[in-house]
Structures are given as structure tokens and as C-alpha cells.
């Protein structure tokens, strides 16, 4: 009974803190631009493939497999965590055992996955700590980003140790009481052999220790995640669901511009009184982005696969697609509370462009979509880069000189070069084809 009360209080605190954090975080979505969520069947398909099937992470086959195993393992182990919460609240033990063979299968899989995840996490930690993997470095990867990654990995490592510990000492405890087992534990039964001969009291202590250790780690981890890049754990599946499903090369149409252009092209409507407040064109700060951009930023786990394939970054330019996402997240975190307090008129004298992202970074992009192609959680960095370019050009007329010249040429003679439109057929002059072909 004491255990149940203690557990209930702990769970309540966990949920309260989590709800408070979520409320703060999700308030930020209020400031972002609305976008419709169309084509649900296709989104379900994409989610099944990219999120559940982990298809894009396999573009790096070895590390991809390890990550996929960790992800799939988490999904199986989640059943066990839910059972622990029920057990904790109601004082039951392995309450889902009534599922019989299904339980045996799920918990055997969970036991094996715990070992696989443990090994994978050790590989990940080794790569982060001892191998100089290029994509884990870069100007945006500050010491705090690295500590964040190592902390998340350490948490998962401890989670798996306590899970295996719990199973192992559960087996030993049942054995010492001559009670029937619930579930099958192929890895832990092997581990149990290593601890044979301990007294029932010691076994009981370690069973309880690992049980509490595991569930408390989950509670603490869940509340650290929203403040970490590893919020990815919660956000990536929903992010894949809401991600862009149009072809990578497609750029969103700016409806506000369409209205203006149609007025210019049709003199009839040119004098029609416009009652709308002129919007800001493009993105210069966090609140100008769409809610999907912000979801993208919250789902980014800073793996750097985008930056590793970016042609600008590869050739030493400042642009790093990962940094763009990290900057949006950091800027929203900074400005969100003020926006919440004072509304959209809030101004802290800073902005996303300028204080976080330089114009030089934005103009280095070739819009090749390699970053978006690579992102395992379907983040689309180019659309945000394009929206910031739109701000620079439409609001600030701040395009590089070469582009301004191209704009002028397109406007005046319908081509980015200085040629007369009348010469558009010159290529076809004196054209012959071989008669014998």
C-alpha cells in the first residue's frame, strides 16, 4: 500500500511537470502561421513507411539498422512500461500476464530488444566520444549540444540496464519462492544464472531497486526530453505525419502575392479598395514561420545527416541546414515567453535573420533538396530557407547584386540574361537533319 501511494504521488508529479512544460511549449504554436493538413491517407502511408518503417534512416545502412532496432525495441518495451504504471498504481504484479502467449511473445521480444538497445547505445556513445564522426561537429554543435546527446544516450543505457536487472531479479525472486513465471525472458534467464546463490532478501532488494530505478528514470527522462534535442523521441512520429508530402522540388505558393499580382495584371481590380492589412512577406522571425516549420525544429535531433550532404557546407560555406532548424527552435524558445506575454507586437530587438541566421547562410543554398531527402524525420529545410529569402527580397530588396541583375533582365526581356525576346528563335536557324538517318 505504501508502495502504491508513493508511486501515485511520483506519477502525479511527473504528469504535472510534463503538462506544464507541454503547455508552455505548445503555446508557441499559437504564434505560427496556419497550414492545412490535407491528404490524410497519404500521410498515414508516409508515417508507416518513414516513421514506423524507418526507411530514410536506412540510407546509412549500418547506423540506420542500429537506430531502427532501438526504435522498434522502444515500441515493444513501451508495453512493459505501461504495465509497470498499472502495477505501480494498483499493487499488481505483471498485470498484463493474462494475455498469455501474446504476453510471452511481447516480453520475450522486449527482453531481447533491451540487450540489443544496450549494445546499440554503447556503439552510439563510442562513436560520439571516441570517433571523430564529421557530422557530429560543426560551429552549431556547441559543448552543450554534445553534452545533451551524451546525456540522452546515458539515460537510455541506464534504462536498459535497469530493465534487464528488473527481469533478471524477477526471475530469481520467482525461483526463490517457487512461483510460476509470467512471461518469457531469453536474455535475463541467462543473466540470472550469473547471480545464482544470492539470498532471497538480497534478490528482493535488487528486484525492487531495478523496478523503481527503471520507472523513475522513465519519469525523469520524459521530463528532461522537452528541454533536450532528444524531444525527437516524442515529436518525430507526429512530425513525419504533418511533414510536407508534395514533391521535394515544389515551393509553396504565396497567396498574398497572387492577390497583388492579379490586381496588377487586371486593371479592373486595380482600383478595388483593399481592406486587408498588408501582411509581412516571408519569414524574418520565429513567429512568421508555419506550425510545420516549428514542428520540424522540435523534431530535429541534430544528427547532421542534412549538413553532411549539403553542397554548400561540403565546400566550406557557412550554411548548415541543421543549424537553420536549431536556430528556429532556439529563437522560439527565446521569444515565445515575450510573445505570450505581450502578443504578436512583442519586440525584443532581435530577429531570426540577423541575430541567428545570417544572410550569407541563406544565399549559399542551392535549393538542391539533398538535406530534405536525407532527413530521417522528413524535415524540409529548403522551404524555410526560401521563406527567409522571400523576406529579404520582398521586404528588404536585399538580394545579391547578380540576382538583382537577373531579376531586372527577367522583368525587362523575359530571360535572366540580357537578350531580346525577339531572339528566342535564333537557335532554330540553319537547322538540318541528316537525310539518311
Amino acid at each position, binding site marked *: 500500500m505504501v508502495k502504491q501511494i508513493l508511486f501515485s504521488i511520483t506519477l502525479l508529479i511527473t504528469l504535472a511537470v510534463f503538462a506544464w512544460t507541454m503547455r508552455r511549449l505548445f503555446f508557441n504554436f499559437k504564434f505560427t502561421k496556419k497550414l492545412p493538413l490535407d491528404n490524410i491517407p497519404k500521410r498515414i502511408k508516409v508515417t508507416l513507411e518513414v516513421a514506423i518503417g524507418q526507411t530514410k534512416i536506412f*540510407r546509412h545502412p549500418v547506423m540506420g539498422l542500429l537506430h531502427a532496432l532501438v526504435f522498434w525495441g522502444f515500441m515493444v518495451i513501451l508495453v512493459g512500461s505501461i504495465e509497470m504504471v498499472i502495477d505501480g498504481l494498483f499493487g499488481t504484479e505483471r498485470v498484463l500476464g493474462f494475455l498469455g502467449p501474446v504476453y510471452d511473445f511481447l516480453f520475450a521480444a522486449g527482453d531481447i530488444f533491451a540487450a540489443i538497445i544496450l549494445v546499440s547505445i554503447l556503439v552510439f556513445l563510442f562513436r560520439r566520444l571516441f570517433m571523430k564522426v564529421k557530422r557530429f561537429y560543426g560551429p552549431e554543435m556547441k559543448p552543450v549540444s554534445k553534452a545533451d546527446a551524451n546525456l540522452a544516450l546515458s539515460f537510455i543505457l541506464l534504462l536498459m540496464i535497469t530493465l534487464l536487472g528488473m527481469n533478471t531479479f524477477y526471475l530469481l525472486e520467482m525461483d526463490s519462492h517457487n512461483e510460476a513465471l509470467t512471461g518469457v525472458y531469453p536474455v535475463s534467464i541467462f543473466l540470472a544464472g550469473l547471480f545464482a546463490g544470492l539470498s532471497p532478501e538480497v534478490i528482493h532488494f535488487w528486484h525492487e531497486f531495478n523496478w523503481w530505478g527503471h520507472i523513475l528514470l522513465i519519469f525523469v527522462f520524459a521530463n528532461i526530453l522537452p528541454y533536450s534535442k532528444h524531444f525527437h523521441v516524442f515529436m518525430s512520429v507526429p512530425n513525419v505525419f504533418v511533414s510536407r508530402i*508534395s*514533391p*521535394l*522540388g*515544389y515551393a509553396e*505558393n504565396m497567396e498574398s*502575392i*497572387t492577390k*497583388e*499580382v*492579379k490586381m496588377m*495584371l487586371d486593371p479592373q481590380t486595380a482600383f478595388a479598395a483593399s481592406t486587408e492589412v498588408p501582411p509581412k512577406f516571408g519569414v524574418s522571425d520565429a513567429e512568421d514561420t508555419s506550425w510545420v516549420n516549428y514542428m520540424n525544429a522540435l523534431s530535429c535531433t541534430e544528427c547532421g545527416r542534412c549538413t553532411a550532404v549539403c*553542397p*554548400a557546407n*561540403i*565546400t*566550406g*560555406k*557557412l550554411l548548415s541546414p541543421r543549424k537553420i532548424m536549431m536556430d528556429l527552435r532556439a529563437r522560439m524558445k527565446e521569444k515565445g515567453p515575450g510573445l505570450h506575454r505581450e502578443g504578436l507586437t512583442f519586440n525584443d530587438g532581435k530577429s531570426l535573420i540577423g541575430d541567428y541566421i545570417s544572410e550569407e547562410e541563406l*544565399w*549559399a*543554398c*542551392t*535549393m*538542391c*533538396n*539533398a538535406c*530534405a*531527402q536525407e532527413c530521417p524525420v522528413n524535415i524540409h529545410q529548403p522551404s524555410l530557407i*526560401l521563406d527567409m*529569402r*522571400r*523576406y529579404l*527580397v*520582398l521586404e528588404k530588396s536585399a538580394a545579391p*547584386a*547578380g*540576382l538583382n*541583375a*537577373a*531579376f531586372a533582365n*527577367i*522583368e525587362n526581356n*523575359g*530571360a*535572366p540574361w540580357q*537578350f531580346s525576346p*525577339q531572339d*528566342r*528563335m535564333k*537557335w*532554330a536557324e540553319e*537547322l*538540318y*537533319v*541528316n*537525310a*539518311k*538517318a
Partner: protein
Amino acid sequence: MENKIKVQVPVMAEIFATGHKPEWLFWVGSAGAFDDRYKKVTREFAKILSWLKTDYAVLGAEESDSGDVARRAGNEMLFQMQALTNIQILDMYEVKKIVTCCPHDYNTLKNEYPDLGGHYEVWHHTQFLQKMLDEGKLNIKSDLFSSKTIVFHDPCYLGRANNEYDAPRDLLKIIPSAKVEMPRNRSFGLCCGAGGGQMFKEAEKGDKEVFIERTEEAIATGADIIATACPFCMVMMTDGIKYKNQEDRMKNYDIAELLSMSLGL
């Protein structure tokens, strides 16, 4: 010249005036009409079209820039003006099917013009030629390139942007020659460096230019020919070959040129 037949490229305004609506509109694009190197590609593709007796026409002086560069460089106002103007012309001639040699125009006409009311069936020239191949219309007997090795550079706006990796490769397969791939190919392909408006501006400060990085990768394959299917990639690869002083041993051709030459046109 006795073995040559003059090709008259049909212009839409004239054809339409006779009451005929051509099946295809060949969208030449600004680079196809004005860039000296890519004009040659336009000519070769037009030769193939007329040799295939395709029912087609071009807009000629009535065509204007697709607006792709303007849009990706952030000038949405200019893009939409261009797009709406072009849509007016295309709709006036009741255009249904468009073929173009430019992946950027292909992308914007296919994926972006619909937002502004322009709905067409758009084909990249490699897709069009692949269709002709499937219909058995392209039979190559020449062994012009049989001693050569060809490497294909994926244009971003054909490949990643629109998922077309096979059409150009299927066409290369019928040209007797050796083929190799760069380490970064298909969806892993590295950009030539010209997209997103880069073609028209100075590159930002860095260690090297993107086109050099990509050309070095192509050179390392040992290929004699870099095949491309995009006017921007063409300019970049040509510059890269020059920069690396490989002009004597390496050439850069569009798939349409390789086919036209192999067909003996």
C-alpha cells in the same frame, strides 16, 4: 548539303492559325533559347522531334522565362508575374502536353503552375525520349561512343525533386558505351552548384566551388563523357572540366545530344 534536310521548327502562333493544335508544346526555356552551349542541345532535341515526326510546336518569341530562378531566389512577385503571363499564353493555345529539356522549368511547370491555374501534362525530355524508346522508335546502330565511358550526373530537379532517376539511365543504356556511376549518384547525387539562383551570383566564401567538387568526383570515375540533362548542370560541368584542364580528355554532353549523334542525325 545534298544529304541534309532543313528542319523548320514549328511556331505555335503559325500552326494554331491554320486551325491545327499540336499534340506537344516544346518548352525551350530561357537557357535553351539563349545559352550558347545549351542552344546546341535545343537544336539536337528539335532534330530528334522532327525526325520522329512529332506533332509539336514551340512558342518562340511568345515564350517568357518560367520564373524558376526568380522564385527560388525569393522574388515571388516576379515569379508569379512570369507564371501568370505564361499560363495565359499556354491556355490561349490550349496546350495540354509540354516537353522541356530543363528540369527546373519541368519542375515549376509541373508542380507549381497548377497553384496559379496552369494545369498541363509536363514531361522532361529524357522522359519523352524514354517513352519513344519504349515505343520502339529509337534504334541505334552507330558505335560512335563504343570506346567511351559515360558517367551520368543527376540534375537535382529531375532526380530528388521529382524522383526521375531511370529515364536518363535507360536512354544511356541503348548507346553502345561503357557506363560508370559517381559515388554520389541518384538520390545521393551532389548538386552542380547552380540551383537556387546560384547560377547568377557570386558564390559565398568557402573552401571551393561546388562545381569543382562535383567535377572532381566525375573525373575520378575515369569517364570520358559527363552526361547531363539540365542547362545549369551543363554550364557547371563544362566550367569544371575547363577548370581542371581536362578539356582534351573529357567532354560534356546532354543526353539529347548523345542520342542525336548516335542516331546519326
